[in-house]
């Protein structure tokens, strides 16, 4: 997709005015946050597993060359084929060639962030091949020509009435008067539409949650069953995976898998978890006859051993999105890129260039909830701060900004002056406050701040008094 991250400020203003979006985002808290918390509480080993997962990723990245080669050997030994792709253009060309080789007319797609990253759908369509998204959320946004707004729930920004309108418009084969009020009706209609597509597709394309070097396996998780159908029915299965998805062994994979679904949806396990190893065996009657894995770099290797390496630990669970106060009010589309929320604010500038996504590192309050819930313990705040430093080095703030910061610095490094001034300002501001507080900044949905101004003592004064009272 063409990224529009530089319009983040304008996009988020629009998002704050969007009633439907604000309602839909309200579900985040009740849904994902609560479920994750409960799932984590039920697994006392969660944090110990996190330690192991981080160590596994560090080790895998430190030996990425070895493990990718081993993975290739194993896939090849099982009758599959590995294709190395430096960038999106190479990946698109490879996929198109594989589709053309089997004369493919229709492709079924399982939800995949990497497929969004390389924008494969538009490319296939332009080349006369019909790409059908099969995940319900992904199908809805394909009909609406929108990018996904969330890693796990691509259509999380929509209310069911909007989905119903889209279905009425795009499914003329169904009677106009049909009932589409309930989520059940919508799910059933999509199920009905998708079944013949699965059965008639020539190629299935999926991403990969993990790659296992030891066995040459691709691990895929889903709840709808669409990934396994996309893979088991067509004659060709094409997996697109970025190189950092690799882990050494099945045992390592299971550590990360225990964290993944709990962090993503709060499930102990997804409805479907498949370890796929090569094409169908002799005498097997379903499964793909051809098994292709694309290993895509697209900027990852440049991050290795650098200050941003830790973002390569990301397992795309979406927990940082679900807990981010900024994402929680802007939604995903405001980020103007495939990857959104805190992990997207780090990854998008690194993959697309800081100049194309300059506002994203600023789109954080640095509250740190993202780090707290990240199963891979990625220091997202630190990474965002590093990006801000880069940004400032490239383009220092204007004279006014630097002037204001200079004034602040002057006082901040002279504590007694700072406290005295704070005391004075608070008392002077008291008459202007409403309900004992002064609003600063825009007031729209959750933005801006309210400072208490009651003319009373400052925090430091209260603290000193308290400490004094404690002393005998």
């Amino acid at each position: 997709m063409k990224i529009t991250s530089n319009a983040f400020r304008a996009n988020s203003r629009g998002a704050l005015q969007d009633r439907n979006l604000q309602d839909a985002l309200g579900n985040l808290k009740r849904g994902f946050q609560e479920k994750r918390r409960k799932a984590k509480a039920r697994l006392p080993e969660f944090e110990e597993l996190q330690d192991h997962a981080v160590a596994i990723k560090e080790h895998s990245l430190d030996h990425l060359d070895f493990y990718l080669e081993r993975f290739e050997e194993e896939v090849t030994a099982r009758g599959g084929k590995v294709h190395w792709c430096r960038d999106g253009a190479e990946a698109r060309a490879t996929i198109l060639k594989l589709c053309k080789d089997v004369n493919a007319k229709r492709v079924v797609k399982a939800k995949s962030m990497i497929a969004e990253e390389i924008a494969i759908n538009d490319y296939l369509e332009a080349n006369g091949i019909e790409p059908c998204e099969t995940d319900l959320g992904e199908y809805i946004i394909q009909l609406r020509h929108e990018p996904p707004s969330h890693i796990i729930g691509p259509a999380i920004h929509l209310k069911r009435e909007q989905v119903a309108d889209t279905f009425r418009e795009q499914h003329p084969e169904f009677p106009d008067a049909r009932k589409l009020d309930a989520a059940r009706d919508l799910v059933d209609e999509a199920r009905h539409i998708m079944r013949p597509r699965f059965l008639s597709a020539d190629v299935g394309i999926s991403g990969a949650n993990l790659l296992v070097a030891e066995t040459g396996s691709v691990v895929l998780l889903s709840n709808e069953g669409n990934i396994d159908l996309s893979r088991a029915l067509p004659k060709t299965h094409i997996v697109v995976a970025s190189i950092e998805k690799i882990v050494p062994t099945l045992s390592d994979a299971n550590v990360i898998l225990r964290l993944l679904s709990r962090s993503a949806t709060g499930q102990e396990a997804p409805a479907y978890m498949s370890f796929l190893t090569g094409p169908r065996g002799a005498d097997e009657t379903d499964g793909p006859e051809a098994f292709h894995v694309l290993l895509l770099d697209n900027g990852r290797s440049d991050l290795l051993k650098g200050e941003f390496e830790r973002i390569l630990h990301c397992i795309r669970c979406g927990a940082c999105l679900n807990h981010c106060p900024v994402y929680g009010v802007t939604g995903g589309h405001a980020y103007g890129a495939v990857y959104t929320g805190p992990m997207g604010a780090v990854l998008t500038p690194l993959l697309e260039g800081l100049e194309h996504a300059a506002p994203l590192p600023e789109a954080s309050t640095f509250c740190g909830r993202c780090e707290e819930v990240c199963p891979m313990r990625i220091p997202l705040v630190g990474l965002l701060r590093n990006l801000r430093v880069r940004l400032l080095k490239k383009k220092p703030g204007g004279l006014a900004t630097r002037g204001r910061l200079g004034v602040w610095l002057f006082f901040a490094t002279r504590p007694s002056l700072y406290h005295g001034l704070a005391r004075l300002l608070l008392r002077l501001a008291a008459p202007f406050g409403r309900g004992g507080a002064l609003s600063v900044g825009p007031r729209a949905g959750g933005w801006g701040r309210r400072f208490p101004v009651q003319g009373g003592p400052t925090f430091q004064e209260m603290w000193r008094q308290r400490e004094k009272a404690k002393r005998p």
Partner: protein
Amino acid sequence: MKARAAILGRLRTRLGRDTASAAEWRIMEREVAGRLEHPPAHPVPARTRLGNAARRALFVRMAEEAKASVTPLARAAALPESLRSFLKTRGLDGALHATGEAGLRALPWAAAGISLRHGRSAGTPASVALAFAGIAETGSLLFCAAPESPMTVHLLCDLHLVLLPENRIFATVEAALEDFQKTQGACLPSAAMFVTGPSRTADIEQQMQLGAHGPRELHIYLTEEGP
């Protein structure tokens, strides 16, 4: 091949391999080979370290939590009769798509008026399958692709009816895969699919709906004996 060399070259530059001597290179290779052969012991949830009865109970609890039903059967031979009455309540005739393991085929289907179809499925109201294993930790079933066990049987049905012998319940995914490797003499099947409850989606307003693209219902028949 150009891309392969370029990517590996870039990785090796970033990882500082350019300066590695032949001896250092051999050490790294040995390290990686050792790590693959003997991965470090990772934590396994303590709740899965159980005796047979407790493991069975955990499996049932977790499967039910994932919205599967679990019906205990004293003998596998009782399955056809049990399914006959169940199918009747759903207004279905006695035709089922089935996996083709000898043990499943040998059950008294004809006596219960049920006929079985085998092979790849293109969609059916109900299918019956023998699971390779059950996973107590998560209440999952493991199906392994094989000539007699096409994956479509498990995916293209509304009612997924599964026979699982109690002695096939393992503590974890790891333990079940290890059993496959030991008993089947292969590293992994072309597809090892762990199924936990019926298919589902929460893509509409985060409301959980069962029966997305796969089965709408999953019914597990847990037998003390056989097949």
